[in-house]
């Protein structure tokens, strides 16, 4: 990786371009994708940039192929990424599960648009939040980051790569159409100031006793790449430490428990929230992505009227900040949850509040951002 590939400086980028540049700064040199509005600028940027720096860009025949190609590339030693939106995200689900099961580090950017189905290709929504968590079949714990500005598209894409390399899991960047197409100042630091994490390699040389899925205390096994002589077997079937398929309940318990626990035990280092005016607040607006920004206007208007309102902005939506919500619920009147769907994250907030305070959803099926007046109305009701 050449430091000069990182575009250090101040730029005026839309969110999608910022995400592509974040990937490059994090060391991504393999992109496979399929054009889909409103994410296409990411693929277009990568098709321009990667060939200049010895990376690989490939436009695949569909999103299933794109997802599989980035998994294969990861085993070839590359940091890899794809970008898509609703329908394409649905098509990627099965192979995101393959990535979870085979512990393959990679990054999937989903620039959310209105659905179900083809829905609103050019207009915003935030309705894939539960899909990011539960969309692939089987039990697993996921990591998803939700940027709310072009700067965060850059920063969170870098972080997504670092988390994927650290925990060996596909990490999802849950952006949305407004953030993807919004153009703002993006500051890219010098390459040496950007934290970049690389996957841990096996400490032992290749040999008959090598166990590709033997994890240490942190539950994340070191990862060999293809062509390094380790001769490992990688399968989507339930497998043992050798990587061999074992179709028993005992093997399932051992493997799936570890896959979930490697995320759960590290949730404190993964979860990030931005808290604004939380101290002494009676109402807390829990929001993410573009809705976090829509909320600011309502929060300021409420504060001007003397209401004690704060914001908990979810920089990571998964894992969910259960402890923080539980603690806040004991000391406030209630939560307001604006989201561009008919209710998703609100269920998590309710679950964690566990009846200690009110929880009020401000739903919107998408196509436009919330009217801040709706959020303000909810804040007023909850503060009564």
């Amino acid at each position, binding site marked *: 990786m050449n430091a000069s590939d990182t575009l250090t400086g101040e730029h005026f980028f839309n969110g999608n371009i910022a995400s592509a540049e974040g990937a490059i700064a994090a060391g991504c040199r393999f992109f496979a994708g399929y054009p889909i509005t409103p994410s296409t600028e990411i693929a277009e940027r990568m098709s321009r940039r990667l060939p200049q720096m010895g990376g690989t860009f490939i436009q695949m025949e569909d999103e299933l*192929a794109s997802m599989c190609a980035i998994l294969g590339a990861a085993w070839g030693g590359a940091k890899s990424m794809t970008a898509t939106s609703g329908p394409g995200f649905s098509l990627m689900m099965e192979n995101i599960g393959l990535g979870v099961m085979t512990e393959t580090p990679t990054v999937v950017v989903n620039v959310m648009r209105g659905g179900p189905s083809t829905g609103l290709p050019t207009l915003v929504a935030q309705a894939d939040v539960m899909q990011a968590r539960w969309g692939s079949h089987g039990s697993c714990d996921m990591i998803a980051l939700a940027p709310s500005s072009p700067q965060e598209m850059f920063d969170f894409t870098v972080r997504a790569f670092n988390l994927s390399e650290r925990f060996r899991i596909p990490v999802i960047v849950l952006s949305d159409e407004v953030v993807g197409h919004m153009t703002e100042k993006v500051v890219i630091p010098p390459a040496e100031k950007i934290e970049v994490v690389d996957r841990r390699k096996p400490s032992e040389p290749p040999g008959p006793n090598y166990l590709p899925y033997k994890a240490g205390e942190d539950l994340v096994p070191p990862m060999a790449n293809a062509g390094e002589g380790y001769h*490992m*077997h990688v399968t989507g079937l339930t497998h043992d430490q050798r990587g061999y398929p074992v179709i028993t309940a005992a093997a399932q318990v051992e493997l799936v428990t570890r896959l979930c626990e490697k995320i759960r035990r590290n949730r404190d280092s993964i979860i990030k929230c931005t808290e604004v005016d939380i101290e002494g607040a009676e109402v807390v607006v829990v929001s993410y992505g573009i809705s976090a920004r829509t909320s600011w206007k309502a929060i300021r208007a409420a504060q001007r009227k003397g209401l004690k309102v704060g914001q908990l902005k979810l920089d990571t939506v998964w894992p969910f900040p259960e402890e923080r919500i539980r603690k806040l619920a004991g000391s406030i009147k209630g939560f307001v949850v604006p989201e561009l769907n008919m209710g998703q994250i609100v269920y998590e907030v309710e679950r964690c509040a566990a009846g200690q305070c009110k929880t009020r959803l401000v739903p919107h099926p998408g196509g436009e951002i919330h009217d801040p007046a709706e959020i303000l109305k909810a804040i007023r009701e909850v503060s009564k």
Partner: protein
Amino acid sequence: MSPQQAGNRQVLPANDISAVDRDLSGTVAPFEPDQKYAAKHPLDPLLRPGRIPHIWCTGCGLGVVLTAYLNGIKKAGLDLDNVSVVSGIGCTGRIAGYIQLDTFHTTHGRAIPFATGLKLAKPELKVSVISGDGDLFAIGGNHLIHAARRNVDMLVLCVNNFNYGMTGGQAAPTTPVNAKTQTSPYGCWEHPFNLPYVAAASGAVYVARWTVLHARRLMESIAEAVQHPGLSFIEVISQCPTNFDRANKGGEALDLMHFYQNKTTVRNGIDPKEADIGLYTPIVCGKFVDIQKETYDCCYGNMCTVAKGGKK
């Protein structure tokens, strides 16, 4: 598995390793090979310790394919540390798990795009996709034609047993007209694919077909194909005595071997359009296509030169 669940399948003996692998309760004791049968085999260094005997049925042709592949890559003199085998789902999809190289057992139909990512990220790898007719031509058909169009440098070895064996013998896009399967009980009414014709039309630069009787020719063809730059496609016709051939009264494995011996002709260089297969009709084998064309890597490299401001 109860006899009812087994349908017309051969019920497996309790000490067969395949029963262990398929039994969800995990109550069947693991198979311990009898020492007197566990003599050294020349391919042992290329087989994963503890994984043989395999899960395939008695009389299946996949053992021949596995042997031919391993001998083929040995004959080609490849650096075995740089060989990766990728497979999809199904009976053939289990081949990867027996080979002591870097092996990837992916999702149904997706071996080719996974292999494409692997190859392009690390071009020095020699990548082989080994999978079945259903995996490569039904659920994964789109990927096959596009990999052939791009001319990605890899071998695609497709074992065609004319049905979905792992799930108990259902119709596939290769099932001949009038053949009976579990989902075509009155006889298959759909037209099948002619696999070499599809591969050649999509752009594959090396296209051949053999049966599992042609073990030596298959091995030599594999040795040739893995060294041929670009996308090579080899179809291997295999019997499936448990499902397809039982349902169609084709006989036991040995009967099918006699059939391959008596009813196949080798016609190298013919137009693959002429290589259609019917239900137990004569089979045309041979190397149909062997041409040179710029590989994806080469074309991509040329484009990168332009991207960096140079000339092709």
